[in-house]
């Protein structure tokens, strides 16, 4: 009985504008950049391994109708706090990663709870609120890490303290857990290193998300996401459901940040999280997701396209203009531009449905009159 959808070229174009644009950009830039295929693939595979988990954390709030969770940065900060402790305690390798994840959970839950509560106070403005929460919580994070750590919160090792005696150095070195996940079971194939364990973790995460959609909570979130009032009337605790979705997202973002940073091997203590939200959201949108709909497929496609663009843009920029900076700026512009475009399209779509009712009425009237004239 399903309505058959006619394939409408224009519609397809409109719905997939962003991915198509990116495919074109990549297609133009890859040859210009002059990178070898194995280098490019190796880079992309590495970046997929470290980034996908973070992006997956965005899916659940979208399901609950809370839009793109700009507040995922809160989870990233929780992950960083955990990593600082783990580094200080000298726990290395995979045990260190696991311990950091466990430690990040209470912090993430607390921040997610705060964020979720505030978002419930600002329904319809969740995204801008989450965006502002980043900066607000960044302030709190700096207060804790820069002033409380090693003064109130014990930090043993002088090597990660600032020379003045308290606060954490501007860079935290994760040399002892660098790529410990990436290297476990890694396969080297024609110059491409495949971080198998990372992909196993990502696979498990995908399965969890698929499973989660089939749980009662997942069903409630979908209901809340589509119509809060109906869900409320049916007895679903809307506010609580929304808070839970943000908490889940924050916790997963914390894990994601830990996976991300163990790959990099060190992180700038005070800025590592600041761009992560922007990147993940841009990548997700590039994969064809929108503010109200996103799938696991969008995540994978998005990571591949976005990172390809990111890798090749500077070199391609040099090839075209002879100035490396232009490529750098260009890729930043494109990431922001994509988010802007997605937001604008979402807002316009929300308001478009209206004007069609009138046409139908006029037609019905005409039909009635013609029918009357004939009889």
């Amino acid at each position: 009985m399903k309505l058959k959808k006619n394939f409408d070229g224009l519609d397809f174009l409109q719905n997939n504008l962003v991915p198509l644009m990116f495919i074109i950009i990549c297609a133009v830039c890859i040859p210009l950049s002059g990178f070898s295929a194995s280098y490019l693939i190796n880079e992309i595979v590495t970046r997929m391994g470290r980034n996908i988990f973070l992006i997956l954390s965005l899916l659940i709030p979208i399901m609950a109708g809370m839009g793109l969770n700009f507040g995922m940065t809160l989870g990233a900060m929780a992950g960083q706090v955990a990593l600082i402790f783990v580094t200080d305690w000298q726990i290395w390798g995979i045990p260190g990663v696991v311990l950091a994840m466990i430690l990040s959970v209470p912090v993430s839950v607390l921040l997610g709870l705060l964020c979720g509560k505030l978002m419930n106070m600002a329904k319809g403005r969740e995204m801008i609120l989450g965006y502002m929460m980043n900066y607000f919580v960044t302030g709190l994070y700096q207060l804790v890490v820069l002033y409380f750590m090693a003064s109130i919160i014990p930090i043993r090792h002088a090597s990660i303290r600032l020379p003045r005696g308290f606060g954490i150095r501007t860079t935290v070195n994760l040399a002892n857990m660098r790529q410990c996940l990436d290297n476990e079971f890694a396969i080297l194939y024609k110059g491409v290193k495949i971080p198998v364990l990372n992909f196993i973790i990502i696979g498990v995460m995908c399965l969890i998300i698929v499973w989660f959609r089939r749980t009662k909570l997942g069903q409630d979130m979908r209901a809340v996401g589509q119509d809060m009032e109906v869900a409320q009337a049916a007895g679903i605790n809307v506010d609580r459901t929304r808070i839970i979705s943000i908490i889940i997202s924050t916790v997963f973002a914390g894990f994601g940040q830990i996976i991300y940073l163990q790959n990099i091997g060190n992180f700038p203590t005070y800025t590592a999280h600041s761009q992560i939200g922007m990147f993940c959201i841009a990548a997700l949108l590039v994969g064809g997701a929108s503010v109200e709909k996103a799938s696991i497929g969008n995540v994978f496609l998005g990571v591949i396209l976005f990172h390809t663009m990111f890798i090749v843009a500077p070199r391609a920029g040099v090839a075209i203009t002879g100035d490396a900076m232009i490529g750098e700026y260009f890729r930043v512009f494109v990431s922001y531009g994509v988010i802007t475009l997605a937001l604008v399209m979402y807002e316009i779509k929300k308001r478009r449905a209206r004007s069609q009712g009138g046409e139908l009425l006029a037609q019905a009237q005409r039909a009635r009159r013609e029918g009357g004239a004939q009889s």
Partner: protein
Amino acid sequence: MKGKTLAIRLAVLAAVIAVAAVMMVIGRGHTIYLDNKTIEDYQGQEYKSFERVVVTVDGEEAAKLSKRERGMATCMGQSFTMTLEITDKKGDEPRTEVVTVDLPYSVDGIVINLPALLAGLPEDAWYSEFVPQVQEEPEDEEPLPGEGDEFGLEGDLGLEGDLGV
């Protein structure tokens, strides 16, 4: 039912804490410094350094030590096993020994004197803690997070000026 749920939750919480504890033990990293130095006077006896020691940890060669040299290896967990290929005197056939040492949890860097260890002396003879030199940091290191702060008051806050990764 309530009680059961609570019990299950507590059990899971305990399990998570246990995992964390296990991680703290098995993931504890130590740096081990191996000295091939002569101990001149331990209870009146002298233990000569070996001509040459090749240290292998986890199948990888960690150090090749001649006389009076110091090697380094890293280790996770509370015990450290190494395979030593020892040449006592010049021209001798190397002999192989496997040595396992238990490491104290709270110490980051451990110095082991190999001749003393292999002679089977008590712990205080071969073990000492590695104390890193206090590095005098240049005091002018910029402690503040704001990257754009070089203009005194002008690094106005907010949308961090740091575009890109």
